[in-house]
């Protein structure tokens, strides 16, 4: 059955908010998505009926909280086709997941080793590797992907026997293009590099199967896929997670502590120091369930059609430059050379339309594109064709008002 946002909009009460009598049009979904009632309810239910600290208590509520928390891990493992639930580590989000790996692998990195990333990375998948390179004397290299995200045979030469880590985004947050994951991971495997994929912009849209991808690590945030903020996931293969040294230590992650030494717990707990974000994990699992209930290929098609609507409406306008692909994307990133993106953003905001203007935490990519900032309209499952059309209409009004 074809997906339509009409059938699910009522799951997101916030969409009824108005400003200056305009209904809000929320097109900043790549920054964070709105949350369906099912997610909100799961968090409230946890606090109403199950709140206690997990794992160590031996009483009714603690058992209940622990099983809700560990069931959430199972749900996420299934969501990713991750096999065992011990492959799922809870983190604060994508950024912490990447930092956890960057610190955890540090003991394996030596001077003159290479860490390879791509030119389409968010700062979160750049700075931790750059800093790891600084700490170890390794060299950060950048695979020069173009804004079309296509694989070129000469890229293979970037993967060498010195490449110890390869990290790439799945989907660019700034321009929405998908990277050539299969080709890149294939080359990375040939040279025996650890591989990490930043799935922050992918999980809300694509059905991710980590077994098929066959990467060592896959990371994402809950709040960009209809879940709560402050919770994220580090998926890792058993061997890859085992090799990580814990980057935080303390409670929950230990088996036995003496003043002389500490015996760490097994995975996944070894990498989860401190009381976890229990309601975050439960809320994220509810978001996974929410997505799994949808016809996901149709949902993706719906979102891609919205981006396509915007692209088709605007690409012929000589005043507008579009940086996103013409199809197979769920966002449109653009600029108007004569008009500041912040001004466009303000006019759209005055009509209730929320988008994002800026460099999208991707300064090097903006430099590559030769633009200071772009205006990004990013779509989620609850957006409508009318909203996409309204965005175009108001954007064109803004350009008329603002162009000198």
């Amino acid at each position, binding site marked *: 059955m074809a997906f339509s946002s009409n059938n699910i909009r009522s799951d997101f009460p916030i969409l009824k908010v108005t400003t*200056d009598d305009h209904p809000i049009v929320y097109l900043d979904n790549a920054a964070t998505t709105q949350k369906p009632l099912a997610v909100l309810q799961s968090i409230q239910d946890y606090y109403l009926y199950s709140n206690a600290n997990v794992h160590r208590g031996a009483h009714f509520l603690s058992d209940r909280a622990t099983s809700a928390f560990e069931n959430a891990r199972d749900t996420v493992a299934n969501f990713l086709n991750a096999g065992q639930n011990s492959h799922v580590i809870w983190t604060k989000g994508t950024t912490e997941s990447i930092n956890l790996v960057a610190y955890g692998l540090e003991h394996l990195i030596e001077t003159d080793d290479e860490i390879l990333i791509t030119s389409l990375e968010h700062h979160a998948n750049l700075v931790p590797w750059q800093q790891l390179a600084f700490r170890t004397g390794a060299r950060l290299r950048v695979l020069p992907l173009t804004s079309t995200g296509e694989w070129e045979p000469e890229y293979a030469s970037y993967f060498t026997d010195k490449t110890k880590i390869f990290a790439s985004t799945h989907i660019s947050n700034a321009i929405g293009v998908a990277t050539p994951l299969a080709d890149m991971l294939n080359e990375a495997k040939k040279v025996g590099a650890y591989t990490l994929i930043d799935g922050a912009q992918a999980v809300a849209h694509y059905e991710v199967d980590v077994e098929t991808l066959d990467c060592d690590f896959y990371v994402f945030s809950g709040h960009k896929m209809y879940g709560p903020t402050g919770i994220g996931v580090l998926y890792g293969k058993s061997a890859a997670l085992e090799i990580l040294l814990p980057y935080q230590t303390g409670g929950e992650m230990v088996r036995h502590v003496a003043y002389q030494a500490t015996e760490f717990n097994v995975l996944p707990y070894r990498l989860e120091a401190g009381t976890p974000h229990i309601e975050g994990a439960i809320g994220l699992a509810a978001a996974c369930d929410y997505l799994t209930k949808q016809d996901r290929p149709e949902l993706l098609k719906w979102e891609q059609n919205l981006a396509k609507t915007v692209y088709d409406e605007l690409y012929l306008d000589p005043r507008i430059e579009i940086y996103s692909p013409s199809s197979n994307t769920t966002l449109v990133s653009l600029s108007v050379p004569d008009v500041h993106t912040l*001004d466009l953003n*303000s*006019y759209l905001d*005055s*009509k209730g339309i929320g988008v994002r203007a800026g460099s999208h935490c991707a300064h090097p990519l903006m430099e590559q594109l030769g633009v200071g900032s772009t205006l990004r309209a990013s779509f989620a499952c609850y957006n409508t064709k009318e909203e996409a059309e309204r965005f175009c209409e108001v954007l064109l009004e803004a350009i008329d008002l*603002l162009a000198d």
Partner: protein
Amino acid sequence: MTHLLDSQTIQSRLQACTSKEATFKELVALSNQLERLTDEDKSEEHKVKGCESAVWLIEEHIDGMCHFKADSDAKLMRGVLVAVLSLVQGKSKADIQAMDLVQELTQFNLGSYLTSSRTNGVLGILKKLSS
């Protein structure tokens, strides 16, 4: 020297705006009052730090009074600059330092244009005016 509208006129125009859209249009109209800086004047030295859009501010002294020139690459910010400069143009440094510029600026009814992430940038401008 730029002849800007006086701050009373600007205030009443902005106070008459009852929606974000009206404020937006008024700021666009105000922005046209600002005399643009030359490329040489838009130097690193004159740049105000902490603004989302680029803002340059130049201070000159004539007969002991302050005269400011400013520019931004964003049009709405140029409108805000016209409002801000109307408060301080032609005054002595001591007078400017005695003013509560943040309080004065709230009279302009800039609402969301100042409560958003733009605030820090505007505060940076006010700080530079009285330094």
